[in-house]
């Protein structure tokens, strides 16, 4: 940590954890997390624990009680649309506030950005990505594609090897977050035990409940200056219960898509009333009919299907 105090306290001195906590603005970060991310109980708990550990570590430094820098490499597993990427984006900012990383930027990569196409191409490519991520967070989405067991000449293994080396030697410089679907990630870790042991935090993102999804929908609408009418809210709640039973339900992502379609219908509805003047409220409000026009209600099928 960069801002460690230079003066060493006496053994009999005491330090004020509360004061340090208030000075670090961590509560503000945690509050923001609570406000803007619905649900995700295990995720928030783990972030709180990490925050506490880093804070206590800072206090211990005042007594010159040194301990190794904690590893903060993480693995996010969960179904589609459970907020893995969103949390990763926040992670950079949180870790910067906690003084664990210096810059706090997020570099998002997939297999394409790490693995090369011919011999000798992979190592420079991976290293370039790692150099860009230094001082921040390297987010590897769908990390299991790095390892392809069916092809033993695949260059993915080389990328994993370089990653492992950097994760071990440059712990102070960057935090690596792997993300992917649960069962595929489990398989990936089984075949790469070195990777599993170097990642201290395995966080599982649970599926959302219907009421959580509704709260998410409202947040999404508010950020785009839209809102539900009272009937529309009831209709959307009904839509969610029906949609959750259908196949390919991807949590918050499905909600976002449903809202985008509702916006389309709203625009079409407003367009249909030619000649009439529109108020600001009308431009902002999604009505029940915009939701109820969905095929989920009429035919019990997904809207995406053709």
């Amino acid at each position: 940590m960069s801002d460690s105090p230079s003066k060493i306290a006496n053994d009999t001195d005491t330090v004020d954890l509360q004061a340090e906590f208030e000075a670090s603005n961590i509560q503000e970060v945690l509050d923001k997390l609570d406000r803007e991310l619905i649900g995700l109980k295990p995720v928030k708990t783990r972030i709180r624990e990490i925050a506490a550990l880093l804070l206590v570590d800072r206090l211990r430094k005042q007594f010159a009680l040194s301990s190794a820098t904690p590893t903060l490499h993480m693995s996010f597993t969960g179904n589609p649309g459970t907020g893995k990427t969103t949390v990763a984006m926040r992670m950079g900012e949180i870790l910067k506030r906690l003084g664990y990383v210096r810059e706090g930027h997020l570099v998002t990569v997939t297999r394409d950005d790490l693995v090369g196409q011919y011999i000798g191409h992979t190592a420079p490519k991976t290293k370039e990505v790692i150099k860009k991520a230094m001082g921040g967070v390297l987010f590897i989405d769908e990390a299991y594609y790095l390892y392809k067991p069916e092809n033993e000449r695949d260059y993915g293994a080389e990328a994993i090897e370089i990653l492992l080396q950097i994760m071990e030697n440059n712990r102070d410089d960057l935090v690596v977050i792997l993300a992917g679907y649960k069962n595929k990630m489990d398989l990936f870790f089984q075949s790469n035990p070195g990777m599993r042991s170097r990642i201290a935090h395995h966080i599982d993102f649970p599926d959302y409940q219907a009421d959580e999804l509704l709260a998410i929908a409202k947040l999404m609408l508010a950020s785009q200056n839209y809102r539900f009418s009272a009937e529309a809210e009831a209709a959307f709640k009904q839509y969610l219960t029906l949609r959750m039973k259908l196949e390919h339900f991807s949590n918050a992502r499905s909600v976002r898509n449903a809202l985008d379609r509702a916006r389309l219908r709203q625009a079409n509805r407003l367009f249909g009333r030619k000649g009439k003047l529109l108020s600001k409220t009308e431009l902002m409000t999604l009505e029940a009919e915009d939701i109820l026009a969905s095929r989920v209600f009429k035919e019990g099928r997904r809207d995406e299907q053709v």
Partner: protein
Amino acid sequence: MMTNHGNRLTQGQFSFLPDLTDAQITAQIKYALKNNWAVNVEYTDDPHPRNTYWEMFGMPMFDLKDPAGILLEINNCRKTFPNHYIRVTAFDSTRGVESPRMSYLVNRPKKEPGFGLVRQEVDGRSIRYTIHSYATDKPESERY
């Protein structure tokens, strides 16, 4: 050259100072990155002042946020060429070309033989002067 004890090469910034420490190098790189300059690492064993273009060690590094990545590359270069001159250059692209804004040595050979003055007689009694690095008498990669 009595003005330069120990024949230390004086090219680029800070070259009259003692060698920069890693912390000082990091601070300089941080300044370059703050100005959105791309940084690259170059090496040579022909330190003649007119030898402008040194060999690049890897590609120039664009879009970096933190000096740690560049320091990693400097240390790689030092490991590969422990007895070469290594310099770090920062390039500014605001004028449409990548023009060097900073350039300083981060590694030098253990023994620097320095430069000799060469006199060439031309046109009657005229003399032309040039300098010549003693190291370059030997073939490439055997110089230091």
